[in-house]
């Protein structure tokens, strides 16, 4: 009896082990599949220039970064397996992975890296902002050396910039559709997927790169982009099972998805925010009192409640938000709401009977709703804003005379940056390429410059506090909230972590069963 039970027990144990083994084998086999992504159609395909989330997500699946930013904002090796920084902080030496090949079969080497970074400078890619001035050279095929003109504590974030994707040496027209046998010859990266079909404005199919350098990756066989520009249609496509993954879901649609079965809603804390900004060099915003009046006239708590249903974190007057644990000062006093004070300030500024102005905004992310509520709030302070809602692409288009860089008063959407320096250098320095407010404050420029060479987080946080002060006193921007980003997948998708900048989401470890 006893020995019999023992035998049965042993047999059961054996069976269990066998099941475990076969089970794991099966689960390995189950990896792969096709991920169908519903996203807005890309318009700029050049990996050094395309800037919105779908464009970056598309490009980063075809190309690789030298080093990359993880969703937790740390820097990780990628095509560069390691790096060293000299004592003076002026020389960065990267050692590259071996055996990496481009999709056309050619070898990846240091020359490609040198070419890529020089190209970023030549074509004036926004990526150069965080890189500062540098020279890049290749002492041998597996080594790349960057020499900086001045110290830059954020240099690695510059190298990991979303647009710094490594292209083939000499590639003059990356991602341009070619005529002839292989229309996709210019989509030549080292990345985990190769482009096999592209239908403009309709869809794109990416197929697994079987010889990808990273062992065991990617898991997916195919990625299919379905280009859907309408946010409601995107959500419907997810619900009906036409796509498996959508990101940047508009605030109105979130609660409807919470209860939907078969769908997982993903919330990502980010520093994404709308910037309500005045121009400082023309229009009423030239007067600091007017800027103050707008700040006092804006009830941020109500905006967050009505537009985001309270899901955001209330913002202040500078772009350093809760996404940056090290730098965000949660104790800082949030700008008070006082329409009477706003009225008084406007009167002092020479607008005793109120102020008439046009508010430019875009038709996504709930910003048209934001404008509608702002208009009502501002009316109480004597600011009569007329709303002009623009198609997103049109508002950011250079040919539009009232575009985001030109309008007197507008709302701009700012996506997540891995470090606050990204916003400050791009938009709030005199020379910043996206200086939409045309703000020029020498003291601020100096502080931003100082922050860029301060590697110690505590010291940098102190500088950022001073910067926040300047924004509070004379800054031309209002930040109603920092928004979480909502994405959703169907339940059969696993291994997906949405990055704070959704376009940077890494799809290599994703599988669909």
């Amino acid at each position, binding site marked *: 009896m006893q020995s019999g039970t023992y035998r049965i027990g042993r047999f059961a144990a054996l069976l269990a082990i066998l099941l475990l083994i076969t089970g794991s084998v099966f689960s390995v086999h189950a990896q792969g599949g096709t991920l169908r992504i519903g996203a807005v159609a890309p318009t700029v395909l050049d990996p050094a220039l395309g800037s919105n989330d779908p464009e970056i997500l598309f490009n980063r699946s075809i190309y690789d970064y030298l080093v990359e930013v993880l969703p937790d904002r740390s820097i990780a090796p990628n095509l560069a397996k390691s790096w060293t920084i000299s004592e003076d902080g002026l020389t960065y030496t990267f050692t590259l992975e071996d055996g990496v090949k481009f999709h056309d079969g050619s070898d990846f080497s240091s020359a490609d890296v040198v070419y890529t970074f020089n190209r970023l400078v030549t074509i004036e890619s926004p990526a150069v902002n965080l890189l500062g001035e540098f020279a890049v050279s290749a002492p041998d095929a597996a080594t790349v050396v960057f020499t900086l003109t001045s110290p830059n504590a954020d240099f690695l974030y510059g190298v990991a910039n979303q647009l710094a994707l490594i292209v083939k040496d000499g590639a003059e027209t990356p991602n341009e559709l070619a005529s002839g046998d292989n229309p996709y010859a210019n989509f030549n990266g080292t990345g985990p997927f190769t482009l096999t079909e592209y239908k403009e404005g309709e869809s794109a199919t990416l197929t697994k790169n079987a010889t990808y350098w990273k062992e065991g990756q990617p898991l997916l066989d195919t990625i299919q982009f379905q280009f859907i520009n309408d*946010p*409601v249609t995107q959500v419907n496509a997810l619900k009906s099972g036409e796509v498996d993954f959508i990101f940047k879901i508009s605030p109105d649609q979130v609660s*409807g998805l919470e209860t939907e079965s078969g769908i997982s809603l993903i919330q990502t804390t980010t520093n994404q925010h709308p910037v309500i900004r005045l121009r400082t060099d023309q229009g009423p915003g030239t007067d600091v009192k007017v800027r103050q009046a707008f700040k006092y006239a804006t009830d941020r708590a109500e905006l967050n409640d009505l537009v985001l249903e309270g899901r955001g974190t209330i913002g202040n007057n500078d772009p350093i938000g809760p996404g940056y644990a090290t730098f965000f000062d949660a104790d800082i006093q949030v700008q008070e709401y006082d329409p009477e004070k706003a009225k008084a300030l406007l009167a002092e500024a020479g607008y005793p009977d109120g102020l008439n102005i046009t508010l430019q905004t875009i038709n996504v992310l709930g910003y*048209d*709703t934001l404008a*509608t*509520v702002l208009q009502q709030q501002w009316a109480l302070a004597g600011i009569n804003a007329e*709303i002009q809602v623009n198609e997103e692409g049109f508002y950011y288009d250079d040919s539009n005379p009232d575009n985001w860089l030109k309008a007197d008063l507008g709302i701009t959407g700012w996506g997540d940056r891995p470090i606050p320096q990204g916003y400050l250098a791009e938009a709030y320095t005199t020379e910043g390429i996206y200086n939409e407010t045309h703000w020029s404050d020498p003291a601020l420029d100096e502080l931003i410059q100082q922050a860029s060479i301060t590697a110690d987080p505590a010291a940098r946080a102190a500088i950022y506090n001073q910067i926040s002060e300047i924004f509070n006193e004379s800054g031309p921007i209002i930040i109603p909230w920092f928004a979480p980003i909502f994405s959703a997948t169907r339940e059969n998708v696993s291994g997906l972590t949405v990055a704070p900048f959704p376009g940077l989401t890494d799809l290599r470890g994703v599988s669909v069963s």
Partner: protein
Amino acid sequence: MTSITSENAVQSPSRIKRLTAPVWNVFKQLASRPLSLVGMVVVALFILMAIFGPIVAPYKFDALIKGAARQAPSAEFFFGTDKLGRDVYSRVLWGAREVIVIPGVATTIAVTIGAIIGMGTAYFGGWIDEIVSRLLDSLLAIPALLLALVMLGVIGPSPIGIVIVIVLLYVPIVARVIRSATLNVRSSGFIEAARLRGEANWYILFREILPSVLPALTVEAALRFSYAIFLTASLGFLGLGVQPPSPDWGRMVNEARESYDRTPWALWFPAGAIAVLVIGVNLLADGLRRVFRYEGV
């Protein structure tokens, strides 16, 4: 029943004065057909709404009622409130103006210009007719919504922009219809008689031809009006019409679309209002067509 048509058949000169009497006749005939009566009543109600809506509405169209977002229809808010706490009933009432005035103005201009071009080309004929007709034909070849999108993209979304677009779209259509109607009467005896009397061209056009083509013109105007309402609402829906916080029904439908699962009433009522109005105008147009025994061109 046949007073209008018999007048048309007789077509004696100087009929302008005698045309006012048949207006009452037309009303009576419309009222005798149940569907036409419904159309007439609906259109009348909406016109009343456009005139008195803002006075009757409990709230202003852009007022955010504190703490009243997403309320279902109730005795307090007949049509419920939208996601921002605006009273949908008040917005629908205010919106009648936007939805009736813009298409109304646009249709009036389009029908006036179209009628003048149509009568002129048919009456004078010759190379002017050829050139103008081919020009209008080429305009007709462009799909309506596409032309509207391109034009509003260029001149920017505004009520005047919409009026211009509708006028451009409908002038060729009206002109073609009126041109055919005019060709039918051009060689009639009374026109010849007027010519032989030595009447001026403008006199013949407006005192002789216009009364004869008036039935066609009326039906055409009613039809154009219903299409114009639809087009305006479509443009509002696409965000190319009037700007927020306007209570344009098309825009309201668009704004309510994203939160449909929680505030469906914010979509039902403006959408329903558009549907009822368009059906009403169409029933009326259909009734007019029957009264005038006008078969269209």
